[in-house]
């Protein structure tokens, strides 16, 4: 029954749809000069640095100005890191290797040493696997999304087993997910849109446009500032908090 209402929530248009998504305007940007093809970011618990993954299978920690503080030891088996989040305990980083369909654990308390990996099977093309990942504390599930062809939302339990899967009809693609201020936030690269979702039903409750080329990652600072990562430009764009915050 819960799944039915969830599916209904996903397929319905926004519960309070704005006439046209509001265009957000960046206040500044910083370059990520030593990071090749950055693809997602997550804010460190202390709010003073980011962990950023790269399409080249690399993991970095940077300060808020984009300067590299440290890098995880390169792994020859890694292919294409596309999503990053903290695990349900908040102690370990989880990184999705899109090519190998592996969710890899890294320990931020050490030198970002690689921990165990968990397979999250998905049959689409090599670059059409899981692109977005976050922990949803409301449903006690990891929420993942495939990028496109087709875009889908997938829930994993705390042991990384797939529990539920839904089609995602609201944007043509999904590039990042995060949880902030009692809501889920979804970034769509091709549409260049930011969507706010109800964390219980995944219904869309807000929508904004972003003037950023190839937005691939998002995070929120403790003061509510929105940070969008541009892959092609290797930049972090800072925006004022969306009006609902």
């Amino acid at each position, binding site marked *: 029954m819960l799944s039915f209402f969830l599916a209904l929530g996903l397929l319905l248009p926004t519960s309070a749809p704005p006439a046209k998504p509001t265009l957000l305007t960046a206040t500044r940007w910083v370059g990520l*000069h030593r990071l*090749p*093809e950055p693809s997602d970011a997550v804010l460190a618990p202390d709010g003073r640095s980011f962990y950023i993954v790269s399409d*080249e*299978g690399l993991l970095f920690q940077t300060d808020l100005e984009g300067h590299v503080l440290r890098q995880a030891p*390169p*792994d*020859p*088996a*890694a*292919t294409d890191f596309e999503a990053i989040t903290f695990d349900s305990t908040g102690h370990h980083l989880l990184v999705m290797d899109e*090519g*190998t*369909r*592996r969710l890899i654990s890294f320990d931020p308390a050490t030198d970002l040493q690689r921990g165990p*990996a968990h*397979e999250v099977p*998905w*049959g*689409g*093309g*090599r670059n*059409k*696997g899981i692109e977005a990942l976050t922990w949803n504390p409301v449903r006690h599930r990891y929420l993942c999304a495939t990028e*496109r*062809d*087709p875009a889908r939302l997938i829930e994993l339990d705390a042991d990384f087993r797939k529990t539920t899967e839904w089609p995602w009809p609201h944007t*043509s693609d999904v590039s990042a997910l995060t949880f902030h201020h009692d809501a889920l936030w979804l970034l769509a690269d*091709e549409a*260049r849109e930011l969507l706010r979702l109800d964390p219980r039903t995944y219904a869309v409750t807000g929508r904004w446009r972003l*003037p*950023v*080329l*190839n937005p691939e990652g998002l995070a929120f600072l403790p003061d509510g500032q929105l940070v969008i990562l*541009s892959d*092609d*430009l*290797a930049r972090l764009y800072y925006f004022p908090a969306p009006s609902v915050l």
Partner: protein
Amino acid sequence: MLPLPTARLTAHLTTLGALLLLALPASAQLSLTNGQHTLDISGLVTTFYNQRFYKPGETDFKKNRFGLRDAQLNLEGRIGSRYEYRLQVDFADIASTTPDPENPPILDANFTYKVPHAVDITVGFGKVPYSRSSLVPFTYSPYFQRAELVRGGIFGRRDLGVTLHRSLWQQRLDLSGGLYTGLAEGSLSTGDNDARGNLEAVGRAQVSWPARYRFRDIDVDHVPIPMIAIGLNARYADKAVTTGDDYQLVTLDGRRTAAGFDVTAQYQGLSAQFEAHRLRATPRDPNRLFAQPTTYFQAGGFVGQLNYYVKPAHLIISARYEDFNLNDLVAGHNRRLSAALGYRLNGWNSVIKAQWMHVLQEEPALGAVNWNDQVRVGWQLMLQ
């Protein structure tokens, strides 16, 4: 001309291809992985109808027909972060007695070793780094045929050899260069080099701003900032054989130097490309010089294309103009005008395309065709 494999081999390959393609539902590219080695299986099927409007007096209308342009199987893999490989076969051209240089039976058979912080080394058969238009995949264009200047009849688009590639400056600077047998698509069918045994050298540099610029002509994303890329490429060969079904220019018995320039830009759905090439040929056969007091002739020309993507309607609108000269010792130019529409039913995976081509002017001795206009309408389905 590529020789046909034996009928039995053709039958086996065609059956295998058909079975594999049937096994792949649309929009369901298959990816297999063991955690280090990932293999993608995908395909492409394209069918069209071609109608030519022939010149008065023409009695052979054989080109008014349906055609199977693509029946491709594509295997792409990656082993860790060091190795990549690609095998792309077109069964439609294996079955054909007249392979198209734009679309040969084997499109790619190569692998790449990525040297960390250095270069990518690609070994095998595939596209050579010359001409941006040639490097844009067919599947990302509303056109059914590339411009005549760049579709493989004047210079080779693929060859067997080794390519070094390096990207710098956040991929805004892209450098490629390589050595190849120099017989273009014919390198596979002959097996051996020509009697001189020389290789062809090819190189290309591209710089883009403010971000990397992919090999795409259409701005389907409506990029929010203006983007531009400028490329330069060149090639040199000294061969002992002349090939080329239409113009005898793909390889030349003699020395041949070619250089090209291209620029592309896009913003908010509007995009434009311009590309020019100049070929200087010093043939050993004096007949190629048409009794002129010179040791060489020149060929080349330019192509300009303007496109707009109507995002709400999923519709691509494009127009193209080209002007090319097959030999500057012979009077005349070739000028052609084309227009294309592409309706994207499901992104690039399913596209209905329509192309109209009109011959404005011909080089009578070398470039004459028996038609004035051609319309081609068809559908491409990428199985990925």
